[in-house]
Structure formats: structure tokens, C-alpha cells
């Protein structure tokens, strides 16, 4: 049985935590930003990593957290 992940703050569902991280960092509303704080992450820090350093530090960090913390949906 395949596992998918639902965004903790909206209805987005995807099988790839990285894809979910991409979706997540595109949301600028308060709800999404506040959930990050509960996970010990800062939206600003993730974005800053992503736009000032080559590589994928922001997405990778968020994908790891989402893989653990996002509600799972069984296909």
C-alpha cells in the first residue's frame, strides 16, 4: 500500500515529501508559517537558506520534517 502525505495546513496531498516541501514554502499565509514554528523551524530561515546558498538546504530540511510530521494518507 502506497503512502502519501497531506499538508498539515491545507488539502494538498502528494506522495513525495520534497514535493510537499515545495508546495509548503510557496504558501505565505499565517497558518502555514505558524505550523513551522511548532516544529522548531522558521519560515524566514528556510527561505533565506534557499535563496542565499546554492543547494537545497531549505527544502531538504522541511522535507525531512514533513516526512515525519505530516499526516499520512493511505492510497
Amino acid at each position, binding site marked *: 500500500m502506497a503512502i502519501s502525505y497531506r499538508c498539515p495546513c491545507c488539502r494538498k496531498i502528494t506522495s513525495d515529501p520534497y514535493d510537499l516541501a515545495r508546495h509548503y514554502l*510557496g504558501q505565505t499565509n499565517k497558518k502555514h508559517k505558524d505550523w513551522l514554528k511548532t516544529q522548531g523551524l522558521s*519560515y*524566514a530561515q528556510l*527561505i533565506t537558506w534557499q535563496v542565499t546558498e*546554492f543547494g*537545497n538546504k531549505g*527544502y531538504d530540511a522541511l522535507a525531512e520534517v514533513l516526512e515525519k510530521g505530516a499526516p499520512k494518507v493511505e492510497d
Partner: protein
Amino acid sequence: MSEYSIIGKPTTNVDGAAKVSGEAVYTFDMTLPNMLYGKLLRSPHPHARIISIDTSEAEKLPGVKAVITGKDTPGGRYGLWRRFPELCDQEVLATTKVRFIGDPVAAVAAVSEAIAENALDFINVEYELLPAVFEPLDAIKDDAPLVHDDCDNNINNTRHIEWGDVDEGFKNSDYIREDRFIYSSQHPAPTEVHNSLASYDKGNGRLTVWSSTQSPYYLQLGLADGLKMREGDIRVIKPHVGGGFGGKNSTMPDSVNAAVLSMKTGRPVKIVFNREEEFTCTEHRTAMHLAVKIGLKKDGTIMAKEFKLITDGGAYTALGATTLYLTGTYATFPYKIPSYRYDGVRTYTNKMWATSVRNFGGTEAIYASETQLDRAAHDLGIDPIEIRRKNAMTPGYEAPGQYNVGSCGLLPSIDKVEERIKEKWTDLSKDEGVGFTLFAYMCGGIFNWIDTPYAFSGAMVKVNIDGTVDLFTQGSDIGQGTNTVNVMICAEELGIGIEDIRLHPADTATTPVDLGAWASRETMMNGNAVKDAASNVKKKLIEVARMKLGENIVYDLEVKDKRIFLALRPERGFSYYDIVKDAIKLNDGEPILGVGHYTPHRKGMVSPAWSFGSMAIRVKVDRETGLVEVKDVIVAHDCGQPINPLGVRGQVEGSVHLGLGWGLCEDLPTDNGLILNPSFADYKIFRTRDMPQIELHEVPTYEPGGPFGAKESAEGAVAPTSPAIANAIYNVTGATFDSNVLKPEKVLKAIREKEGKEN
């Protein structure tokens, strides 16, 4: 395809006689009976809370008819990214705080401009100064002052674009380099300042606004949102416009405040910015920090590209979020890039907001890309033209999940410019160098962040009993020649002459929606709508002609040279004028009407088509002063089927002029949010003596989705100009630059540094 009668032939401007006689009416020239003059009181501080505003003294002045502040306005918020209410962050007048030097806090209407101006000094505003932030990376920090209290970390918008496996691509590269650039801002500086005239009808509560705008529809939406009115109760009319260059897409304080003052006084109100306001309080290009990493094989094949972007958005959103998207897209143009990753952020800062200027997104991205590519070519020992040829886009290329390229004349354009360089520039002195760059540009955007339910462009054609045609379309001619193009397209489609058509442009009450003149969309989108409308009329005329001929339905009829005839037997047909009379009689006396529209479908996510080209610039560098003289320019340009060669040349030359200025002398330095050079004396623009001759070659292709195969013309040619100059200087001196605007002192410093390194 038969030869065209009108398309592709040099055609003079349909507005020509009016423009050369001083009879073309601009909003700037308009007055109405009983009109008042409005002026705006602007914040002297970059960031402050408004404690109180006392307008009582100003109101008492003789000749002053109204003074308004934020509390006197309907309180609607507006912006151009209407799909995202949090990005509609503008108010008619600041209510709680001011966010940049120049943010309007009050407006006055008076019987003369002088009285209105004087009254501003009698308005007392008490501010509580707040700490301000001016740099994007400072603005993101957790302890940064918030420009908008509900926007954490001042992060206005982000964008991520990705395809392929970039990390794998870099692993497979033989050569990798990283470069960082700063692209500084420029101002569109149109000759006609922003100005609007609003007239409120006391009888029916409707508003009419004439404005120097690039998009009557966008202005209508902004007014409706800001004034909390129905769109249909607001009529926006665009008279002739003295230039826009990207800075007149938004709803600006002149229009909304003229409207509110007119509603309050019951009289027409006109607000005209002065030149200082134009420079300091109207939209300019977004300044950016760009970081680009590229991986190539040793034969020059691009394997991977990574692009990081931080943009300085200023105090509000407007179209700034679109710049973020487009810059990230243009960083891949015009090359085949197997894997790509882009991250961009737009931050709020306490400065006048920044958005689109001609070739928005492209100028910035292509500056970084094209300068970097020359350095890579140098390190790899590959000719700069060859490395471009190797990686150039070709017809039908697709960037996975992002955009499609239809027609593409890039390779022939490279060949042409290379051939001409070899033929023409055989006598370079030791202080002269050549820079070669490529360019590409979109034909309007497919995205719909404005959230319109309408087709992206519409048109209506009415044919009268005598065969004359009234063409109604909202396409905005701001100098680029859209009016002439539209008349040419309509004439060609109907097989009639330009002299048979009267154009009724850019009036939201009488023309179907067109999204306006931005991202070079008018020829593709508005042109297609006009062609569609005309073709619907053509169908009706052909039906009547076929009936009269009595021929089998399989035989095609054509329209050309004011006749409608059998394609196979052209001598069998009728005069257009006779068929028109018959068609009207057969339709119960109704004039013949055709309605058309265009919205791109199944064309990827960015644009329905792209123009392409190559450019070479020859410069002479004075190694003692750093002065760079542009000696000659060669351009090969693919705009599909050129509609009007005169107009195309005009667009190319105008684009090169802007690009040269943005590469050498146009700059908007600021100090704590204050723009330091708000006049033509200090904001240096290329004048006629600075301009070289421009050798232009068209590379005709045919874009199936474009009207008669046409694409946008020459907005792309702005972008390659400044990197071509930088590359030329690099080729002469070896000096490299991490910013644009190569003023003599910067060039000299770079040359000396390079010489120092060598010694």
C-alpha cells in the same frame, strides 16, 4: 500561403497626422468644464505611524474645494495579484502608517494647481517615526521592522521553479562556476508623467477616468477594488499615452485620488505628477541580488543551472511578484538547460515599490546569464558565439512542465550576426572589443494572477452599409504601434484597406476586455482577438458571396483587395462593397457584427510564443578614463512574421536605446529610502549623440499561434545590450563586473584591478 496585401508592408502610423500636428490628445492635455486640480501630500519619512492629520487650515484656504485623508476614502484595498487578497496591499491614502518616502497621506482639490500645491503646506501631519528597513536581506531577519504588520519577515512572495536533477547535472559537469551579481534599478522615465482626470456623475453615481495608463482594464479593477464600486460603474478611457515602459500598469495614487476627490466635490478633478514625483513615487525596475551557478561539459554543453534571487520589492506588491516569476524563467533563456533549480524571494522594504520595466525579469536574468557564459567560455577555451550556438533553443523545445517554444529563429540569427561581425568589424583597434549575446522574450503571459474571468483579449468589428468598418478593441497603444498593427490585421483579414477602418481603442465601456500593454502581449493576444473578430465577419460575407455564386461548398472563397472571389477562379467574384450591402439586407438591416477573443490554451505555463535574437555590440574603452563608447550594434531578430517593418525597427531601436542606458548610465541611487537623482539633469539617459547606428536583420519565421504568424517585436532586445557591453569590455580588458550600469569610474576601477592582478 498567398502573399499578404498589408501584413509585412511598411505602413505609417494611423495616428501619425495627429501626433505630428500636436492634435493627439493625451490625458496631460485634457480639461473638462468646472474642473478642479488635485495634489497629493506625501510622507517625508520612509516608515512612520500616522498619529493625526489636521486639514482644517488647508480647508479654509480660498479656492480649496476639498481635502481628504485616508478616513475619507471608501477603504478598499487593491493590487494586481487579485487571486491572493493578502497581496492586494495598497490603499487610496495611507490610513495607519506610511511605508516609503512619498507615500500619499492626503489630497487636495482646488480651483488651480498653484492653490492646491500651496494648500499642502497647511496640512499638519503628526508622525511617530518607526525604524525602517532598506535592504532585502535585512528585511527578512526576525528582528527587522515590519513594513506590513501582518507580513512576517517582510516576505512578500516566493517562487520556486525546478526541472530535471540539478545535483546530478552538476556531478556530471566538467566545469562549474558560481557568480553573484547586483542588478540595480532604473526608471521607465516616460516623457508624459503619470496623470489622471476623474469625473463623477452625480446623477447615476458612475465614474469616468481618463488616465495615462498601459491597461484601462487593470485600472478599472483597481479603482473598483479601492473605491468598493462595481467595475461596470467605472469607465476608464486611455487617450494617447506619452510612454509607459512598464511603469503604468498599476492603479496609482493619481487615479484613485482624483476619483475620490471628484466624488466628494461633484466636479471633475485632475491630478498630474511633477517630474520629481515621477522619479521618486512611480514604479521602477526591481533591484536584485542574483547568484548563478552553471555546470558545463568541457565541450561547452550546459548540464545544469541553479539560480538564487533576492529582490527588493519596496513597500507594496503591484506587479512585483510577477517579476519574481519571470526573472526565474528568463534565467534559462534562450538555452536548452537539462536541469534547473530556481528560488526567488521578494521582500518588502521601506522604499517606493518596484515592479515591471520594459523586458521585466529578462533584463536582470539575462545580464547575469550572458555575462557568466562569456567567462565560462573563456575558461573552457571556447568561442563565445560557438558556446551559444551549441546550447541554443530550437523550434519545438520544451522546458519540462514549464514552457514550450514554438517557432524559433535563434540559430539563423546567430549565423547572421556572426557573418556580419566578420564582414564589418575587421578593423578593431586595441581598445575596441565586441560583445555577443542572445535574447528571447515572451508574447504575453498565460498566468492569470489578476484573476479575470474574461478572455485575455477581445475585439468587435462592425461593418457599415458603405463598407467602412468600426473596430472596437481595448488594446493599448502606448507608442509601440498597437493601433496601427490592429488596423493592419483587421484590413488584411477582411481584404480591405486601412483607409476603410476606424479604430475605437481602449475604452472599457465600449470595448471588450484586453489585459493591457505589458510583457509584449498586444500583437499576439490583442492581434489574435482582432483577427478572430474580423474572421467572424469574413465568414458572414463569404456565406453571402457563396450563395450568390451558387458554387459547391467545397470550393474555397477568398477575400483580398476589396473583393470576395473563388480561390481557383479569381475572376469569379464580387466587390466587397456589394456583398456588404447584400449581407445587411439579408440580415434585416442590422450592420454586420463580428466578435472575437483570444486566451492562450495548451501553451505551457508561461507564454504562448517567444521572440528570439542575437546581438553584437562594438565598444571602445578609454583605459585612462573608463569611458565606454558604443560604436556599432548589429541585431538579428526573429519576431515571426513582422506585421509592420517600420514599427518593428522602431521597437528594436527603442529597446537598444533603453538597454544601452541601463548598461551604462541609468541608475537610481538611494540613501535611507530617498532617491537621490529625481530629474533628467541627474538621471542620465542616452541622448542622440550617444546612439550608434543599429544594423537590423529580420530572421523571418512563422508562429502558427500568432496572427498571420507574428510574435512580439523587440522587447527582447533590451536585455542583451548591457551584458554585450560588459562582455565587450571583458574581451578588451579582461575586467569583469558583478553589476550593471558600467559608469566610467566603475570601469576604470575594474581595469586597474585587473591590471594589478596581472602585475
